[in-house]
């Protein structure tokens, strides 16, 4: 499938998850996207999956404590200033599950976009929006680049006998990671300028034409958005 229809389809699934009212619909979308993400190599997919699923889980675990939706009370805790009484009710659990799945579905759609799409071809399809699409493509690559940089810092520290563990150890790497990204972006910008980027009169390499499956994917994306709002 061409990357533009694939991106549209992933966007349609994310939009449907956001617009749907039923937990089971959102769960099916999340499971479908999870299955899609599992096609990526294990080494690349795990940070995305852990990040996305952990975020959904955190939302599921904590939002019942803070919400007040009534229903059957399963647990009642202390009263906290501003927040009020901490309790967990049947309605709050249902709502938490719904919101957790919704967050996971949107996160998984992004993970599938980052892991499986050919961003180069997406960029080439950008046409007049090429600069914006280039910025998005480079930003998407930031995640694996940061991951690789972080692994490099940890290895260099371990090579000196310094173990990096826990939140404090990770926090120590934030500043060099940020500074390294800025340095890298300057080098990349210099290289792009030297290769003529930004010069008027640019052309585009020929791209393969859309196939039937690509047109079907775009139609499905539109249908998903509509269906998410009306039926799901």
């Amino acid at each position, binding site marked *: 499938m061409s990357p533009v229809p694939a991106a549209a389809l992933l966007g349609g699934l994310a939009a449907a998850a956001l617009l749907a009212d039923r937990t089971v619909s959102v769960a099916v979308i999340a499971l479908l996207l999870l299955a899609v993400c599992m096609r990526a*190599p*294990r*080494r690349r997919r795990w940070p995305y999956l852990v990040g996305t699923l952990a975020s959904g889980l955190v939302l599921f675990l904590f939002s019942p404590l803070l919400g007040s939706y009534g229903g059957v009370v399963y647990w009642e805790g202390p009263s906290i200033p501003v927040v009020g009484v901490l309790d967990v009710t049947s309605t709050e659990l249902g709502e938490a599950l719904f919101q957790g799945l919704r967050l996971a579905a949107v996160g998984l759609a992004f993970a599938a976009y980052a892991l499986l799409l*050919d*961003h*180069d*071809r997406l*960029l*080439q399809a950008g046409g007049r929006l090429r600069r914006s699409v*280039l910025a998005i493509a*480079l930003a998407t*690559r930031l995640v*694996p680049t940061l991951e690789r940089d972080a692994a*490099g*810092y940890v*290895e*260099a*520290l*371990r*090579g*000196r*006998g*310094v173990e990096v563990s826990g939140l404090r150890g990770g926090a*120590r*790497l934030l500043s*060099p990671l940020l*500074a*390294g990204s800025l*340095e*890298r972006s300057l*080098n*990349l*910008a*210099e*290289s*792009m*300028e*030297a*290769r*003529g*980027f*930004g*010069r008027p*009169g*640019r*052309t*585009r*390499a*020929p791209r393969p034409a859309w196939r039937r499956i690509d047109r079907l994917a775009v139609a499905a994306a539109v249908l998903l958005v509509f269906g998410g709002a009306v039926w799901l």
Partner: protein
Amino acid sequence: MALVRVQGLTYRHPDAEAPALDGVSLEVQPGELVCVLGPSGSGKSTLLRALAGLVPHFHGGAFAGRVEIGGIDTRTTRPSELAGVVASVFQDPEDQVVFSQVENEVEFGLENIGVPPEEIRGRAAAALESVGAAHLAGRPTPEISAGELQRVCLASALALGPELLLLDEPTSQLDPDGARALFELLGELQLAVVISEQRPSLPLEYCDRVVFLEGGRVLLDAPRDDAVRWLARNRPAYVETAPEARAGEEVDGEVVSLLDDVSFSYGGETGVESTSLRVRRREIVALTGPNGSGKTTLAKLAAGLLEPGLGRVERTGRAAYLSQDPGRYVVAERVDEEVALGIGGDLQRARRALGLVGLDGLESRHPRDLSSGERERVALASVLVTAPDLLILDEPTRGMDPDRKSALAALLRDGAGRRATLVVTHDVAFAAEVADRVVSLARRREAVHA
């Protein structure tokens, strides 16, 4: 008529006190291969950037004098407008890659300079073919080796069909065979090439002319043969002779590191397979071999940074590992604090280690404010300071000028009695100078001891 004409070029980086280039004048003729030599920080990379128009357009700073490429004044022309006439390949290939697929990366410049769409694919394929990288088309750029990525960057530059090719240390990631193949290719190209190098033996074999920079000034601009004579008289470290074999007495210290029939794979891809290696105290072992032969993997296994899938790794005492990338030694806010990270923050010891590598006076600077050569030395001090029983250095001479290399060899020899040392290197001359024993890895084969 000269293709490149530089007249009285003086350039100072923003916020710098001293000029990086000071009154530089030179000419390059069409088809000429010019090698720019000089110590770290002498202005080689800045000169190349000035020829590409990136200095001053991209970097700012104070610029005086005149640079003309094919009659085009770089002060009045943006670097992007010079693309196609000039093409550059910078030091670090990873920082130049825009796209995630090899062929798209090569096509990027062609699209930017407005090559007709029907010609783009063919020219990109031909450029990849010319650097021996046709097999990489279709491969994702994050998954190919640094040496392969360097070829892709070169193909991206050649695809533009430039009249002037600027190469900043293009062999830094290549094994000796790959480096020679590159120079043979450069010799066949019908275009002017200006190449900055820290490993001078190959450039001196292939170039037409040598420019030697020091402190931003041109000390020498002469045809190759005259230049070799001048270097032999004035900068002998740059004229590498055939490496002399060190006295071949076998070192009989205790075995500090033993790798017995080890194998390791990254996912499904083999890193090393059934390889054995032994390093004794008081011994310096150089580990050499072509790109992709598993040298770094073996070094990391010896350091305990990787666990073998099969086989046995034994080590006596503490190991320290110097990564290939000095950019990984910039975690702390000050140079002395960076060096002290591995010794519980002992700043006195850290400062002594900095003195050993010639960085006195830079203790309070931020590691990122240092030049690349200085960063290399901070990294070296960071591992030496830990006084390890097993010292492992991965490509320690990358980006290092010949004088600094000799100093490093002397430093390693001085401390060799206290530890076992394993040096991973592509630099044959350095290996011969420093090592008691050379172990060559063939691609995915067992180690061959010499």
